[in-house]
Every structure is written in structure tokens, then in C-alpha cells.
């Protein structure tokens, strides 16, 4: 549905996007993830034809966005960053304006208005000026405006930023519901957001793609080592001496606040894809110590994200 190849955008001497390429199939949701200033918004502005790329091509539904900008715009619903809206208009007039500008036939406008108002939960705010709305309702107005013409593609730039937790859940649910029939790109700098909405993710950092794929695969890719936590009733020195016999352990660190004279809590680092729990358990039961806990921990999303970004950075520097 959307195909981006070698997209480059240079502002003066700043390279905002550096040859990024990716594809999104019809019906997919893609989470665009990256730190602030990574180039997410720039890529979205190019796809929606707001700005032009310095180099590279973008096709939406097999149409070149440079040759057919008007046709491309018809297919896209766009929520720019911070959800800009005309403050002096009321919600209903604003949505009607967008519907007309989007060439909805007059007999369909009412039907679509009713639908988006209901879908975004704006019923109670219709007569209010947008400037008076709370941040959450303003964001929903922006979303309603993007949906009014029932577009095939939705481009949402940070759709949940600045909302409270309940509103975030609502908006995420709405995006998920919409995904059944639409192709969606949304951006965020929060990894949980991607996890909550979709599993297809594109991570960009400093204008380059740091990772592109499914969240599960990326977690594996990012996890170069794993962490195991052990808590045992025995003095630290003895435990340490025993554990050093296991060759695949890289590092042993004492967690002091959970340890005492007779109790040792350790954080053990070892290469990924090698399960060291069995071996630790065997050694400890041989010594007859009592185990309080032994578990390893999945990489958190944050760690995955940070690792991937670090990796892409060091690759870039080499």
C-alpha cells in the first residue's frame, strides 16, 4: 500500500532522513518509533505530501506522491503532531468544513459526521469552540477530521501524546478497531505504545532505520545477553566461588540491599540463548544451600529500544 525507497530529506546542512526504505502492506499497522527528533514527523510529512523529499520515492497505492499529490491526499487521513485545529471554529463546523474540502457528497456528509462523532466520542462537544476543548477532546477532533472521508490510509503523528492514561487507552483501542480495514502508520517515542497497538515496528534514529520488523524478533535481536537473578541462603564469598565454575557466566554482581551476612542476592549476566538456571540449581543443591528464588528476566521494552538504538549508532560510526 505504501512503499518508500531511499527517502532522504536534508534541511540546509542537517540530514533529517538518510535513505530510509520500507513497505507497508494493505491492512497493516506500522508503529514508527524513535527518540524525539529522529525524523518520524519528517517522514510522515513527506508521505502526506506536506513537504517534498530531497531524494527518493514514495508510492501510495501505486501512485507516485510527486506526480499525483491530489489523488494521494484523497486516500490519506492525516493527524499532524500536536493535532492542530482552528480554535475559533466549533467542532461540528470544523468537521463539516473538512468533509466538504474532502469532496464528500452532501448527502453523505451527515452520515459520515455521525459516524466519526460516535467513533471518537465527541457527541457532548459538538457545539463548543475547539479552543475551549480539553486536550483529549482536541486530539479526538483531530482524529475525527482524519477519519471523516473514510480514508484507506491513516497517518497519525503521536496520536496519544499529552493525553491522560484513560484517554490513551481509548485512542489506542480506536486505532486498533480501525486497523481492521485500514493501513495505518502512527508514530510514538514510547515503546509500550507500539506493543499495545501492533507488533510491526520501524525504529528510526538520527534519520536512519535502526530496526524494521516484528517486535518479538527485535527483542531477540537486541538481547545480546540475559540477566538471571539468584537469591540463596549462604555467604556471598562461597556462592561466588562456586558460580565462577560455570564458564558461560560473564559477570556476577551482588545486590547489596537485598543481601545480608547469610543471604546472598545476585544479578548474573550471561550470553543470551544459553540457559544457565539448570546449572546454577544443580550446584546449589549439591552444596545443600536453600534457594529463595532463581529466575531470569525478559528484556524490557525500554532495554530493547535502547540497545537497538545504541547498536545502530555504533554501526553508523563505524
Amino acid at each position, binding site marked *: 500500500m505504501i512503499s518508500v525507497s531511499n527517502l532522504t530529506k536534508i534541511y540546509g546542512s542537517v540530514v533529517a532522513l538518510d535513505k530510509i526504505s520500507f513497505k507497508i502492506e494493505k491492512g497493516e499497522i506500522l508503529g514508527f518509533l524513535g527518540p524525539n527528533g529522529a525524523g518520524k514527523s519528517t517522514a510522515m510529512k513527506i508521505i*502526506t505530501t506536506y*513537504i517534498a523529499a*530531497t531524494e527518493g520515492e514514495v508510492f501510495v497505492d501505486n501512485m507516485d506522491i510527486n506526480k499525483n499529490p491530489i489523488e494521494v*491526499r484523497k486516500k490519506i487521513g492525516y493527524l499532524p503532531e500536536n493535532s492542530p485545529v482552528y480554535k*475559533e471554529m466549533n467542532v461540528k463546523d470544523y468537521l463539516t468544513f473538512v468533509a466538504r*474540502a474532502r469532496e464528500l457528497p452532501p448527502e453523505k456528509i451527515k452520515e459520515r459526521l455521525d459516524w466519526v462523532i460516535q467513533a471518537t466520542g465527541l457527541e457532548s462537544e459538538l457545539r463548543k469552540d475547539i479552543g475551549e476543548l480539553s486536550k483529549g477532546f482536541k486530539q479526538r477532533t483531530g482524529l475525527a*477530521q482524519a477519519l471523516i472521508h473514510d480514508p484507506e490510509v491513516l497517518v497519525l503523528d503521536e496520536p496519544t501524546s499529552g493525553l491522560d492514561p484513560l484517554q490513551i487507552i481509548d485512542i489506542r483501542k480506536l486505532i486498533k478497531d480501525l486497523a481492521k480495514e485500514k493501513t495505518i502508520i502512527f508514530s510514538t517515542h514510547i515503546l509500550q505504545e507500539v506493543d499495545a497497538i501492533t507488533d510491526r515496528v520501524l525504529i528510526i534514529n538520527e534519520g536512519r532505520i535502526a530496526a524494521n520488523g516484528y517486535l518479538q524478533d527485535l527483542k531477540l535481536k537486541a538481547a545480546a545477553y540475559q540477566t538471571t537473578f539468584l537469591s540463596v541462603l549462604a555467604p556471598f564469598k562461597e556462592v561466588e566461588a562456586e558460580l565462577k565454575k560455570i564458564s558461560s557466566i560473564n559477570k556476577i554482581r551482588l545486590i547489596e540491599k537485598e543481601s545480608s551476612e547469610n543471604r546472598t542476592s545476585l544479578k548474573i549476566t550471561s550470553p543470551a540463548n544459553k540457559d544457565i538456571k539448570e546449572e546454577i540449581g544443580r550446584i546449589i543443591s549439591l552444596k545443600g544451600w536453600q534457594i529463595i528464588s532463581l529466575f531470569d528476566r525478559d528484556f524490557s521494552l525500554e532495554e530493547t529500544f535502547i540497545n537497538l538504538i545504541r547498536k545502530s549508532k555504533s554501526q553508523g560510526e563505524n
Partner: protein
Amino acid sequence: MDKIMIVMRREFNAYFNSAIAYIFVVVFLVLNSAFFMNTFFLTLTADMRGFFGLIPIFLAFFIPAITMRLWAEERKLGTIELLLTLPIETYHIVIGKFLASLAFLKIAIAGTLIIPIMLAKLGTPDWGPIIGGYFGTVLLGGFFLSIGLFVSGLFEDQISAFILSMILCLFFLLVGYDFIITPIDGWVNGLGTFLKQVISMKSHFDGIERGVLSLKDIFYFITMTGLFLTFNIFSLEGRKY
């Protein structure tokens, strides 16, 4: 055409969604009438010479206030991003905004029609110069609006847009006066005369105001308006790169 109307309607309504429009019309009318009445009671003639003599100066100050928000506000709020990603050609949007501001200006000017009505009651005015004067005012208004619209597109800040538009409008007005032209001619021989004869709006406006509708004068205003609207379109398209 439909697209232009859609943009124009939203833009026109936006004027009346804030108090600024009402304040603007009232101040415009009060100042205009006050200045007119002053000369009217002094000369006691049933014509609008004094009124149309001052209108270019009034427009040079008031029109930047009409146009300053047209693009600057969209840029500041970020709504320009929504507007320019609607399936509407940029020139449709520019023309729509221009026509909205022109419609608003016409309302303000229509308010001054009380003066010719009063003149008709008091005496027998010569209608030629009055009709010509109003026609010229609308043409000149359109020209200044196109300057303001273009300048508004260059700024995020409305005050900067206002000031630069005003300076540009005053430039096109003042280079028609000899007291400005003579020193310019002194610095660069011929430049002042060139400005007066080719660039200035004054001689063209004076012609129409006398009730003489010459194609040359009408052509001047339409060309200049078209020129600045084109600049506006180019500057918006250029923003993409």
C-alpha cells in the same frame, strides 16, 4: 470553483468568529467618516474628493490588519499542515483566502455608502467620480490585500506580517508623490521617475477616481494583484523544499 468557495467560506466566517472584525469595521468607518466630515463642512461641496483622496492611506494601514492572520496564524497553529494536505490545489486555497478577505473589505467599504446617500439628500452630486471612486477603491483594496496575503505567508508572527505589509503598501503609494520621487531621482538618476510612472499605484488610482475608467489603469491593478497572488503560491510551494 467549489473548492475555492469552501476555503473562502471558512475563511470569511473566521473573521466574524472573533471580535477583531467588528472592531475593525467600526474603527474604519469612524475614522473615514470623521476625516470626510471635516473637509465636507469646510468646503461644503457635494462630492467625495476628500474621501477618495485619503482612502489609499487608510487602506495601506487597515488592509495589513485584515490580511496579517491569513497565513501567519495557520503557520503558528500548525493548521497549515492540514490545509495543505487537503486534496485542494494550492492556488485554489490562495484564491479562496484572497476572495474571503476581499469580501470582508467590501463589507467595510459598503459601510461608507452612507456618505453618498447623505450627499444625494443634501445636493446633487456628480455620480461619475463617486462610482469610479468606489470601483477604484475595490481595485486598490484587492491589490493591497494580495500584498498582505503574500507577506502573511512569510511569517509565523502576525505583527511582523502586519508591519511588512504596511511598509510595502505605503511604498506603492508614496512613490507616486513628487516629494518622495525627487530625492530618489537625485540619488539614482531616473529611478524615481521610473518608480512613479511604472510601479506606483497613485496615478492609476487618481485616474479611476476622477471617473475615467481606462483599461490601462484597470490592467495595472489586476496585474499587480495577480502578481502578488502568484508570489504567494510560489512561496507556499517553495516551502516544501
